[in-house]
Structure formats: C-alpha cells, structure tokens
C-alpha cells in the first residue's frame, strides 16, 4: 500500500503534472476532471463519473491507464449482469475432465482440488484484484446504472476493501489496489451506499474553446478553420430543442465525416450532407432543418 502510494506520488506529484501527461496522450482534461482523477489515484478512492452521453467519461479512464502505463480492465455493465460475468466462474468443462482423468488414473480426487485456482476463470473484477503490477490496474466499470441495483451491492467489497471473496477459496486481497472508475449516464439513481464509497465528478459539456482544442487534438488532419466551425455548430445545436444534444464524441465524428467527404468549409450544404454523424434522431434532423441549416453552419 505505502510502496504503491510512493511510486504513484513520484509519477504524479500534483494535479498539473497529471493534466500535462494526460494531454500528451491526447486527452484534454479540464481542471475539475484532472483533480478528480488525481484524487482517485492518490487517495486512492473509487471515482464516480457522471455526465451526458458523449462527454468523454470512458475516454478519461482510458487516458488515465495510458498515463500510468498500466492495463485498462473494462467491465461493461448491462441489465442482469451477475457474479459469473463480472467476477469469476468455475471452468466446469475442465473440472469434468479433471474428474475423468483422476478416474482413469485410479487416483483419489479431493473436492477441494477441483475448486482451486486451476479451475477458475477470471472475469474483470478478479483480474483487476489479481493484477501483479508494477503499478495498479485501472478498472473501468462502465455504465453502472445499466446493471441491476443488486449488482451495486456486489461491488461494495471491491470498492471499499479492494478485495473479492470466492467462497471455495477465501478472500483475495489486491496486491495493488486497483484504481476504480465508475461511469453512469444517470438512467437511474445509484444507491447512496455506492455513492458514499466514491469520489464524485460531474463532467459538463466542454466550453467552445475547450471543445475546439479537444477536436483538434483528436483529428489532427482536419483543417483548423473547419474544426472551429464545427465546434461552434455543435454548441449551436445544443441550444435548440433536440432530443439528444450532441457531445464531444459527436463533434469528433462530425469532423471525421467532413474530412472524409473533403469538406473545406462548413456551409448549409455541407451540414446537410453530414448531419447524420451528429444528430441521431429523425426528429432532431427536422428540428435542425427548421432552425435553418445555414444558421447551424454559422455561414
């Protein structure tokens, strides 16, 4: 634990150094997010990231893993996810073979030997706990609001103790406390007991300058003027009554599409050809057309 703290302290002495190294990997974090990630690594404490879809929650975890030069272990949550999919499962087929083999050899077989590490299939949470370093793994528990409420309770031991319990083997403590990042799209309220164990950060839509800088970094081949036009158009689209206001991910998709089609300058016609990459509902297209494509393009 202390060794871990020291090695990470050397790597990340303060929030600014984290911001800089994140930027080197191609992720621009605002001061709030950088502080949140810094605390998650150094306290260490699980971090709950919330925000609208497409503001870069998942990307933040990926960038952090890259900065720390450590594996990113990702658990995508979904309705009905359970221990067998998140934590561990016994390799039944192999156990059966083991029984047969022992039979053929005429050996006696202890049941406990069937429930040893050899027959264990590691799922993401166990992988994160078992990670051998040198630095802790980054564990991304993505879209935790999609999992059932019961599943949250199941994460508590991991979040608080960095340990998991397998009844047949016992409690496994992490050699290197994994850095846990949870994301939620707020489709439902998470339980207070889960929130209590986590740091919290709300990622807002980036400001215009920040968005421009992010897109420029992610799509370096795009023309600078085009990038600023698209960033401005995205923030304009966010002001009209669309069902899904476009986030930074959509802005990046839009620039990619425009570059692919050889668009030099964003005008009404270019917007019309590429609108599908930024608005994903037919109704939203109608709203944008009503507002005027020329207005959207800023021409």
């Amino acid at each position, binding site marked *: 634990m202390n060794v871990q703290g020291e090695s990470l302290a050397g790597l990340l002495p*303060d*929030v600014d150094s984290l911001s800089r190294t994140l930027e080197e990997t191609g992720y621009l974090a605002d*001061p*709030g997010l950088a*502080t*949140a990630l*810094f*605390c998650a690594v*150094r*306290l260490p*404490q699980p*971090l709950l990231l*919330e925000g609208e879809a497409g503001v870069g929650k998942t990307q933040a975890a990926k960038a952090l893993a890259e900065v720390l030069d450590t594996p990113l272990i990702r658990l995508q949550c979904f*309705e*009905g996810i*359970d221990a067998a999919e998140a934590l561990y499962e*016994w390799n*039944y087929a192999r*156990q*059966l073979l083991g*029984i*047969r083999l022992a*039979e053929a050899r005429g050996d006696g077989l202890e*049941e406990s030997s069937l429930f040893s590490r050899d027959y264990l299939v590691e799922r993401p949470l166990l992988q994160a706990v078992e990670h051998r370093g040198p630095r802790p793994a980054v564990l991304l528990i993505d879209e935790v*609001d999609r999992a059932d409420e019961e599943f949250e309770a199941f994460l508590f031991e991991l979040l608080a103790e960095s340990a998991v319990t397998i009844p047949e083997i016992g409690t496994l403590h992490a050699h290197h406390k994994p850095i846990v990042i949870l994301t939620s*799209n*707020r*489709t*439902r309220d998470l339980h*207070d007991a889960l*929130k*209590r164990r*986590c*740091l*919290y*950060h*709300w990622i807002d839509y980036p400001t215009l300058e920040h968005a421009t800088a992010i897109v420029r970094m992610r799509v370096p081949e795009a023309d600078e003027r085009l990038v600023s036009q698209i960033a401005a158009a995205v923030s304009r689209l966010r002001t009209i009554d669309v*069902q*899904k206001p476009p986030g930074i991910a959509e802005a990046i998709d839009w620039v990619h599409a425009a570059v692919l089609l050889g668009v030099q300058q964003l005008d009404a016609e270019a917007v019309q050809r590429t609108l599908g990459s930024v608005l994903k509902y037919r*109704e939203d297209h109608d709203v944008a057309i009503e507002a005027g494509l020329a207005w959207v393009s800023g021409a």
Partner: protein
Amino acid sequence: MPETADLSPAQADLAALVAAFGERLRMAGVPVTPERMARFAEAVLITSPHTTSEAYWLGRVTLLTGHFQIPVYDRVFDEYFRGYVDLVEDTRTPASTPASPLDAGERAPRDTGTQQSGGSHSPITSATPGLDARGESEVEEMSMLAATSLSERLAERDFSECSAEELALLRRLVEQLPLVPPQRRGRRLRRHARGARLDVRSTLRKAYRTGGDPVHRSQRRHTERPRRVVLIADVSGSMEPYARVYLHLMRGAVRALGSEAFVFATRLTRLTRQLSAGGPDYAYARVAESAPDWAGGTRIGTALTRFLDEHGRRGIARGAIVVIVSDGWEIGDPREVGEAMRRLGRLAHHVIWVNPRSAAAEFQPLAGGMAAALPHVDTFLSGHSVRALEELLAAIREAGERRRG
C-alpha cells in the same frame, strides 16, 4: 483566481476548517458525512492547493454525491472561501412558495361543503390534513357495519361527486387496494424443476456423488423480475376532483412497487422522492411545495415531451408500463400530444390511459389531446371510482406478462 486559499495546515487548523465548511454545507442541505470530510482533508494534504480554484475542485470531487448538489456547493464555497454572499440567492426562504397557481384550486367546480375552511392555503396542504383529522375521527365513531356498507357504496361512486368526508374515507379504500407488481422475464437463470435449460453447475455437483456420471439432471429457467410502472397524473383544474385520489394511489405505488410518479398541469414535476418518504400528510405537503402549477391549465404535449426528454428516454420509460391519468383537455397543440405519445409508445412496454371523464355515457374522445393520443394507447380505462381503480390495477398486472404487441 490568484487569491491564495487559506487552506495550508500551517495557516489554519485544517481539521477545524474542513469541519466548519462541511457543517455549512450540511446546513445548506448537502449531506456531508464525516467520512467525506476526512477524504477532503486528506486530498488537501496531498495536493496543498495554492489557489482557491484548486481547493474548489478538491472539495467538489470529495464532498458531493450528485450533480444536483453542485449549485448549493458553489454558493456555500463562494461564501466561505471567497467571502461573498449572494443576497439574491439567500433571500429565498422556504415559506415563499408561489401561492397564486395554487389558489386557482379554490375554484373547484363542485360544492364540497365545509372542505375549504381557510382562505388562501394550497388545496393539498389545507385540505388533506383537515380532511384527515375529520375523516379519521368520523371513521372511528362509525360502527364497523356502517363503515363497511358505506365503503361498498362509495366504491361505485364517481370521485367528482364525493363530498370531502367521503373522499377522506375513499383515501382509506384506495390505500387498501392490493398492489401486485407486474412481472417481466429477468436475464438471470435460477434452478427450477421444469426449467428448459440445463443447470451445468448443479448437475456436475450432483455428479460427484454418482462417480462423475451426471445421473441427476438439474434445470434452470429465467427468473421473474418486477416490471417498472410509471404513473403520470394530470393535476390541472379540470382534473381537480380526481387528482387527490390519484395522489394516494401514486403514493402506494411508489412505496410498494417502487414506481416512478410524475404530475403535470403546465409543467412536469417528478414526485417519486416526495411521495416515498414520511407519512401521507408530510408527503402531500411536499408535493404542494414542489408542484406550484397545481390546478393550473393543461399542457399535456409539453409535459409528455419533457418527460420523454428528461426521464423517459434515459431509461425510466424503457420497457415500463406507463399509466397516464388525464382527461385530454389540451390548451396547446394536440399534434404535440400525438407526437409525444408516438415516441412514448415506442419506448414503453405498455401504455395505459386513464380518463375519468370517459365513464359518462355520452363520452366521446373529442378533446383534441385525447383524440391525438388514442391511436398510441394500448389500454384505455375510466378509473373514476374505486371499482374502476381495481380494474386499472388488474390492467397493470396483466400488462406485465403480455408480450409486446
């Protein structure tokens, strides 16, 4: 922000400072636990922030648990660390809930006798506790027999024809209605004697006892999970006689089924939290505070669109049974109602529309909003009396099992 934060342990006693700041936040309504304060202090020690802005982010990340707490945090932080108090924000007191839209409720269409004793209180805060006291003493005085026969008579009565005392009694009846959660198929599998799938884990366990040969087979099948129910009630002026009764039903559904509850007149208000805590009177008082458009005009289309944008599409309506209680009188554009209902129909598993006015013999769905909504409604019910409410509950139960059609 070049000003220096007064946070280094050399300059101030960190623990006392953090505790005082936490206390201030708690008074402002953000539940800061000692655990979180310790986390804040630890973060300050690690980073020793030099600017107020750095301290701001450390506190925000460590002390909060939700997005909705950010405005309060910002205000308290500014007061505490930047030394200015926003007077405009501070003058709003809880007592100054807008009273005018609520007063509109006083012009209830029917003469409800002694119901309105006070002058300008909201219909809920004044009427319900008043009703309550009177209703309860009345009930206790009555003999069991009389109560039973009265209940039976009342069960058939249209809510809009009931007196205040009768409504109080009805509240009891409504609260006693059996709420059975509708079911859906879960993703998980559980061992079951007549399951269709092989339970490998259990079969192999049993095989150890029979020398490794799987003699005894175990099966499993999908579990049943409760299906979400969403109740959206119209509390505009024209629905006034029904609104309070439905509030009782909503409170029961929120508490027993974990349903989501919304009301709307001119705007949409989510009531799930208000209805889930405290006794009924407390809950209704909080409802009156949070829905100032009570008994106002109706904007069904706007309210439903808002529901879909802010809640429904995020997941609340997905695969849920959505119950809308409204007479369909729309002051806005009926086309908006149609469009919102079409979207809702695609999201929800089953849409039930309850229109208490439809019990009348001469009823025809002519109200603009109603006509626009009907094509997208799976079940249409009246729900005007306790009997009719029983039908509604049965419809909710059945809708859970039915495959989407």
